């Protein structure tokens, strides 16, 4: 098992390297940092632009291979180059990553847990009222893009705030600018701000998980081993919990880790709409700014999270399902 995982890990490292390199090459050939400087007011002297581009390793007059070599040497040493404004990419990246991870961790856990619970119960009550309601709700959510949900929730929040006359729900930013207070107050302020975007993401995830878990659960509900469990004296509820749900959770949990990985980029819209400065929002902004190094760094980070999620799902699968342990 350890050997298997080690080989998997090596595979992932190679894939991450390839994905990041391609992202860099794509960004370096398609984005034009020179435009960024030339559009400045007043326009700087061409020599100054060149000098600036050279210090940032962004000069399109330098051969691509040489720029790539400089960049990849840095990456290997943990240096992701500088942003187009001349700041360290690495420092900013960890900050943005923190924002995104905070948002999506809570959202996936919440959405996953509610989705699994609702899906599993809906399966038990197949074709009854609860199942029908859960199915209708999840299909409704699935058919509406997350962007729309995010905006609708925001509009509603504004309406509620207006109706109440005070800011019950925060819908912009990660924390109140210039907020001052104790550590606890600061945390409270952050949670207050995180409420809406987290809910938006969680709702979208809940729908997918509820459907998925319902199907998985239906597969095992009629399984012989559930009947065996009841035959030895477990009540139906206990047999369903201990034997059916435990078995039906295995595929869902691997799905869960993948969702988490994919959400690093998937949360972009929500971040933009709620004014959170996370990874997704950063990527979009950088493309507009022709910021090659940030685009490459964000791609690297996304590759890392997806591969980490995939690796984690392998480990979890082996841990949960004795049949795949070798």
């Amino acid at each position: 098992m350890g050997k298997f995982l080690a080989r998997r890990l090596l595979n992932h490292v190679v894939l991450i390297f390839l994905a990041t390199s391609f992202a860099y090459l794509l960004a370096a050939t398609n984005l034009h940092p020179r435009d960024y400087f030339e559009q400045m007011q007043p326009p700087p002297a061409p020599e100054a632009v060149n000098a600036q581009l050279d210090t940032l390793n962004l000069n399109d007059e330098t051969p691509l291979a040489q720029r790539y070599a400089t960049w990849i040497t840095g990456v290997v040493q943990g240096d992701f180059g500088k942003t187009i404004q001349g700041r360290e990419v690495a420092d900013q990246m960890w900050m943005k990553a923190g924002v995104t991870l905070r948002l999506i961790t809570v959202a996936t856990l919440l959405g996953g847990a509610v989705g699994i619970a609702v899906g599993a119960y809906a399966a038990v009550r197949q074709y009854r009222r609860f199942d029908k309601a859960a199915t209708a709700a999840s299909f409704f959510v699935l058919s509406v893009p997350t962007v729309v949900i995010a905006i609708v929730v925001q509009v509603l929040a504004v309406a509620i705030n207006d109706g109440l006359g005070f800011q019950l729900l925060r819908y912009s930013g990660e924390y109140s600018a210039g907020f001052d207070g104790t550590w606890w107050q600061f945390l409270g302020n952050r949670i207050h701000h995180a409420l809406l975007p987290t809910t938006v993401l969680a709702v979208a995830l809940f729908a997918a998980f509820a459907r998925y878990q319902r199907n998985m659960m239906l597969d095992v509900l009629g399984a012989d081993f559930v009947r065996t469990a009841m035959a030895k004296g477990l009540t139906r509820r206990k047999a369903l919990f201990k034997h059916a749900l435990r078995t039906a959770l295995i595929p869902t949990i691997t799905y869960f880790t993948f969702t988490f990985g994919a959400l690093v980029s998937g949360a972009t819209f929500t971040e933009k709409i709620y004014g959170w400065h996370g990874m997704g929002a950063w990527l979009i902004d950088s493309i507009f700014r022709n910021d090659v190094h940030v685009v490459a760094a964000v791609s690297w980070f996304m590759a890392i999270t997806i591969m980490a999620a995939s690796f984690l799902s392998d480990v979890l699968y082996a841990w949960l399902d004795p049949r795949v342990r070798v």
Partner: protein
Amino acid sequence: MSTDIIETTEVASDECAGEAPVLEVTDLTVTFPGRNGGPDVHAVRGVSYAVRRGEVLGIVGESGSGKSVSSMAAMGLLPDHAEVTGSVRLHGEEILGLDDRAMARKRGKVISMVFQDPLSGLTPVYTVGDQLAEAVLTHEPRTSRAQARARAVALLDLVGIPNAEQRYRSFPHEFSGGMRQRVMIAMAMANDPDVIICDEPTTALDVTIQAQILDLLRTARRETGAAIVMITHDLGVVAGFVDRVLVMYAGRPVETGGVDDIYYRSRMPYTMGLLGAVPRMDLDDQGALVPIEGTPPSLSNPPPGCPFAPRCPLVRPECEQTEPELLEIGDRPPGEEVRARSASASGARAPGADAAPQRVACLRSGEIAAQGWTAQDIYPVPDIPETSFSHTRRQDRREVLRVTDLVKHHALTRGAVFKRRVGTVYAVDGVDFDIREGETLALVGESGCGKSSTLMEIMGLERPQRGSVTVMGKDSSTLSRSDRFRLRREMQIVFQDPMSALDPRMTVFDIIAEPLRTHGRSPAETTRRVYELIALVGLDIEHATRFPAEFSGGQRQRIGIARALALEPRLLVLDEPVSALDVSIQAGVVNLLRELQARLGPAYLFVAHDLSVVRHIADRVAVMYLGRIVEIGDTRSVYSRPAHPYTQALLSAIPLPDPEKERARTHIVLEGDLPSPANPPSGCRFRTRCQKFLTLAETDRERCVSVEPRILAVNGEDQGAACHFAKRWGTD
């Protein structure tokens, strides 16, 4: 491990009630309401029985007869939407209608159950030991974990799991089917229940494992003193194991009585047909099997009269008026009275408790008893003509197929990116046989012995890894593409599962016409031939435009046979053609196969695990074990004078549908499971389970361990066995 765990109250009630039944089911009905406006399904329609301590009741019936549903209802295991009425009393206490919590306290404690499919019966994510301990802990929550664990280990030991202490930590997938069924039985025994319901406990298992499990159930009965309800479709399993039998048909008991009464003095045409339909391994020349025409009635819309009337050879007009009650033979009112009474439709049911005498649900049971009819008297048994080859000596007939030293090894590989070979599965490891015109060779053996792999190698017509396959005198390794295509006409196959062998989107006509079209027959000829074939296999012309889903299993298998016969092959390969069918249907298909062979003369290569069917249909038989043939010869010799210990054990393991013979027999019960074909034992492959090996002297054993035996002729006739110490009948 004795009965001292049983609560004192129960012992007391046992004493005062004397022979009171432990489980008493009265007038049980189960209805599944139709969904979305569909009709209700009446799965069980009035079942009554009672079992006492230590007694074994067999419930026999074909699929859909309601035998499993009725016992699931007694256990409270049916889904919520099932409507159950009647009464189920456990030690006199009504348990039908108890809520799930109260019922859960009974399940596994007073009444427990062993299910059919051990492969899916255990939760895959928990160790077998934990699942067993759970059965103990559920009912004795104060037991410490260590105690529960010790009890689980003791139970594993009791049911014959070697190294119980270590195997406690194994997961279900690490156990073979037989071992898992042992665990299931251990689970059922865990709390010394008073009733154990066994629902087809051996159906999914091989015969040698079946013998082990039946032995184990006898142990369970002895250890717990429990009453056993044995549900099965296999009349052989019931014969030697039970005290009383209840025969079910279309959700109703149609005959009940002592096991000897049912087997020797059956008075219900259905039971009689069922017994006549079973191929008998112990009879030399049984003649044609008794086929029961038609199929069981729909459970959602049963006919008003006797449910068996549409298939019954003794049917009379009054049979179709009301359903006959289950009555003792002497109590049956004459037909005139029934006709007169049918308008008022009154019906005093016979009491369910006292079930000792034979009772039959047939209007003509008295007549059958008086005339002493048997199945052969009342059912039209087809006359199977002799083949045109039966007068030619075997040596003089043409060879249709010769397989020489055939080998098929699969590589066992590890790793996804860099595949490396970690071992070899010796699926087929040097097999020799030949088939002559018009004869049937049966390839028998337990699952995993390589019989299907052999078939696939032959049907592939490729160059084998070693050895050769010669069809109609042509060596498969020398064939060109077009030769191979032409040769396929000469050999066709009928598959095991008639449900998946036919394309559900094609009509019967298209299915049968496909081989003809593929081989370039003209449309006019194709049409003519398809209708000819439909008639040949006993289907109606109007069936041609229907789809496979509209047919029963037996009819589908007939379609498969018609397709295989379309090109008039010289060799028909039959891969377990009847093992998925019910006994009464199976008889019809077996008769059809024999008749077709007699009329058209193809040779059959018949692969089966059911040795009774083989005895009935095959001229020669080859017994396989771990990729090798261990014994081959003409059927009569092999069955009457088996030379190889494995053949002896196989034959001995098969229960006979004859209670007296069965009680008198001693079974050879082989130890353990089939070894893995990836790691066969050295020398003789069978020696690890061989009953003869155990009796040999040390020097003789040495030979078994080091020298692989070759097939040598025994008994002077067409019979050979691969055993150093093959039994030579008549000489010792």
